[in-house]
């Protein structure tokens, strides 16, 4: 399971940093490295690109995990370079950005767009598997999530638009319900879908951001 990111367009980053002269760069050694959005290579590329636009890069770091407590240690190690910078450009996912905000008072700018929690299907190809809805239904859907993978988040799918196993919105997108039906048919469990699934409680997680305490 990884936090899947894509690079923000460079023009958007330039615009965000337009009043900033000196920048410190932060990458992430885990998910962003795997996505090629914030590993050492991308951080060094960003350094070069920003320098071309006249920015001064006061330093950079790629902590093993940007969203962890080790982020604080990494920040402590780079105190001087960070102190010198006007802002931090964070090339991790949004979780990393949030950690940096906790440990540094400097203005923080994200360099990526965080898409979803996904997995790497084949090298370099990612797909969404879970939207962390707080009410897992994989038991009756054969381990394939229609909330994460059906364009209409149907609980009693498929809709009438699926054709040839593909979603109506894109020929590249498999119909999640097609996959579910295929999988349940194979294991003789198709009857699980005969039950009408009642409306979902979206308030468990998606519309609820209350902090919780570990049980």
């Amino acid at each position, binding site marked *: 399971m990884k936090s899947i990111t894509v690079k923000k367009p460079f023009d958007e980053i330039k615009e965000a940093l337009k009043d900033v002269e000196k920048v410190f760069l932060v990458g992430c050694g885990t998910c962003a490295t795997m996505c090629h959005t914030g590993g050492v290579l991308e951080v060094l590329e960003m350094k070069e690109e920003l320098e071309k636009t006249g920015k001064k890069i006061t330093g950079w770091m790629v902590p093993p995990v940007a969203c962890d407590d080790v982020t604080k240690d990494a920040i402590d190690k780079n105190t001087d370079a960070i102190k010198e910078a006007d802002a931090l450009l964070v090339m991790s996912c949004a979780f990393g950005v949030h950690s940096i905000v906790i440990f540094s008072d400097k203005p923080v700018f994200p360099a990526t767009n965080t898409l979803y929690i996904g997995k790497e299907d084949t090298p370099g190809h990612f797909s969404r598997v879970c939207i962390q809805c707080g009410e897992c239904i994989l038991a009756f859907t054969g381990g394939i999530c229609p909330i994460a993978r059906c*364009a*209409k*988040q*149907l*609980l*009693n*799918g*498929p*809709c*009438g*638009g*699926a*054709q*040839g*196993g593909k979603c*109506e*919105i894109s020929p590249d997108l498999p*119909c999640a319900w*097609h996959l579910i*039906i*295929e999988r349940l048919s194979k294991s003789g469990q*198709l009857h699980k*879908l*005969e039950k*009408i*699934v*009642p*409306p*979902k409680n*979206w308030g468990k997680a998606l519309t609820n951001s209350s902090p919780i305490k570990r049980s």
Partner: protein
Amino acid sequence: MKAGSNLEKVLEGGYFAVTAEVGPPKGTSASVIRRKGDLLKFYCDALNVTDNQTAIVRMSSLSGCVILKEMGIDPVMQMVVRDRNRIAIQSDILGAVALGIRNVLCLSGDHQKFGNHPDAKGVYDIDSIQLVQTLKTMRDEKKFLCGEGISGDVLLFIGAVENPFADPFEYRVVRLAKKIRAGADFIQTQAVYDVKKFSRWIEMIRDQGLDKQVHILAGVIPIKSVGMARYMRDNVSGVSVPDEIVSRLEGAKDVKEEGVKISLEIIDQLKEIDGVHGIHIMAVAWEDIVPVIVERAGLLPRPVL
């Protein structure tokens, strides 16, 4: 009678029903709806008003239905789950019933990506089967989804849609059974061009006795041009147009007349299929042809009940 709408009376009376679609304008003119109503009034038992079809913003279905209702026409209010959450849905239903609307057709709706606001946030709080169930609960138990009581009767004749041509083919029947169990009183299907495949589907429906539990109206979309036929074959999700229909139109001198003939042949075959209780004509941007088709198909006069 559950709602006492004209459509319900026609279907429960055992007549072969005819409904058609009225697309509301991308504007504020009630006369657009009235003109279509005038045109179709004596040729159909009820008229569906679409709900922002293909995710393009248009006058609301509820308003269109009220305008038709004022003309003495029985409207079918289409309602998609794409644009409303459970709060807005139930509220709109209360309003619709208060304004005399008795038929509601429940749909998922085309994905917002297809429309003129592709960046919109799709709601999909509940799905179309849950919508059917919600309306049934509101009508039969006089309760909202949350369990609280509703004051007043919720007179509704509940419709759902089905696409016999979508994949996976065998599963479509399971899903239709779910819709019937959820509370669907009538079904309007996607357009039928491949009558053989449709017959196989309805045979599976009959095998399970589902045709006795619900009224099925088969969809008919008259084809106006070769371009439209090709477009529907290649681009419209969930519609299957056999190549022979496209080539028939390509070879025709009078394409529109050929399109009408094809529709009439399909209707003739549909009338003979056990379990088909009517047709639903969706003449997108060609409403004028509906009276012609209904008349030439021998479906006049419509019953007065």
